[in-house]
């Protein structure tokens, strides 16, 4: 399905802490967006290359990756690949050599502007571009933020996640004050919320209330901790593809897509 005339929505998923759900969020937004028929590009901007691995994409050391795009060795048009068995979904992959992108961006000086410039040839090709970032306040993270018109913060529903949420919000505001980011913070996605039966655990409820105090209406429906997600990742699938009864687990991503992508369906009322 070819793209409409509108320019691509570019979202970056950020958290200044490891294990906060960034890669899972990027993965799910990519899959769900492509399943809705949107031309979707995900970008792995983390040298840990977890997103590339989850989507079962493998490139040779001599094939273009995000590193070469950043360094302007290749155009972004020559560095994306189809995701296996996924119509409408493509990836600019990474491998561990992407760490050298840090050095390059540091030398350039205005790292926040680099990826934005490199993605221009793709703005008329894709409906949605989602970028997975490394969990550090690094030049790779800054260049992803600078390229985006939407930011999504993911944060584990725990003390570690709340600290990460604070630091990440400060980073976005810092980028905004330096005019490196002029987009919207679309939402804060609570990650690994724990439920027993129909109710959150005490810890989850306490931490969700703390998050709500900090971000108010930006707080999205939580992502529940579930073995189904682990199974889904093992099969490069979504929870609903593994078990149709688990479609509810994907609700936060339906909400995000509706907020970001023109034409994305409105999900059922938030649970």
């Amino acid at each position, binding site marked *: 399905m070819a793209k409409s005339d509108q320019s691509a929505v570019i979202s970056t998923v950020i958290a200044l802490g490891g294990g906060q759900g960034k890669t899972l969020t990027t993965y799910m937004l990519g899959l769900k967006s492509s399943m809705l028929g949107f031309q979707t590009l995900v970008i792995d901007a983390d040298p840990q290359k977890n997103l590339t691995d989850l989507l079962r994409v493998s490139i040779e050391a001599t094939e273009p990756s995000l590193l070469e795009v950043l360094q302007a060795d*290749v155009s972004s048009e020559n560095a994306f690949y189809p995701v296996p068995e996924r119509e409408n979904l493509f990836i600019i992959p990474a491998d561990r050599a992407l760490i050298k992108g840090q050095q390059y961006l540091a030398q350039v000086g205005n790292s926040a502007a680099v990826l934005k410039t490199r993605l221009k040839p793709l703005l008329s090709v894709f409906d949605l571009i989602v970028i997975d970032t490394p969990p550090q306040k690094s030049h790779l993270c800054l260049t992803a933020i600078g390229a985006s018109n939407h930011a999504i913060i993911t944060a584990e529903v725990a003390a570690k996640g709340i600290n990460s949420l604070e630091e990440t919000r400060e980073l976005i505001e810092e980028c905004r004050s330096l005019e490196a980011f002029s987009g919207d913070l679309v939402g804060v996605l609570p990650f690994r919320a724990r439920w027993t039966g129909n109710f959150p655990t005490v810890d989850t409820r306490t931490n969700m209330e703390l998050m709500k105090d900090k971000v108010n209406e930006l707080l999205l429906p939580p992502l529940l901790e579930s073995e189904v997600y682990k199974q889904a990742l093992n099969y490069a699938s979504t929870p609903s*593809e593994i078990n149709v009864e688990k479609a509810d687990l994907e609700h936060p991503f339906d909400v995000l897509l509706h907020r970001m992508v023109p034409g994305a369906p409105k999900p059922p009322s938030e649970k």
Partner: protein
Amino acid sequence: MTKQGRQQKISASEMFAQRKAQSVNPRSDKLSDSVTSQSALPEDSSINSDVNQSKGDPALSLQSLQHELDALPKVTNFQLRFEDDLKGEVKDFAREQGVTPETLLQGLWTVIQKDHPDLMSKAIDEARIHKGRRSKAAELKNSITRLSKLLESL
């Protein structure tokens, strides 16, 4: 999702299919990067000797290199999807032999066609078994998607 009446731009699939394959200098994450552009060149002294012979004339050197390149087979992208276990085996084996998975497959294809055509029918039988498994998986995925959409509409 498109709006009626708007002109359609090129799709990502079309862009991917139409683009020319591009190679880059081999990447490495080693701290002391010993990979240089020279190591990406095939082991062929004629390339170096061409360069040496036409040292005084860069244009001549470029021309002779271009002729040599034009004589070699063109390489294009060929996306393959493998079963996980087999992919690991092929990659490991290729790496141990100092070749790439793609060149290993090219070698196998050439040898079977040329020297062991008797093995071809066995290979095709094996391929049909693998294809059957994939078709089954695709059917199951389609059924699951259709059924879940039906349940949503109820």
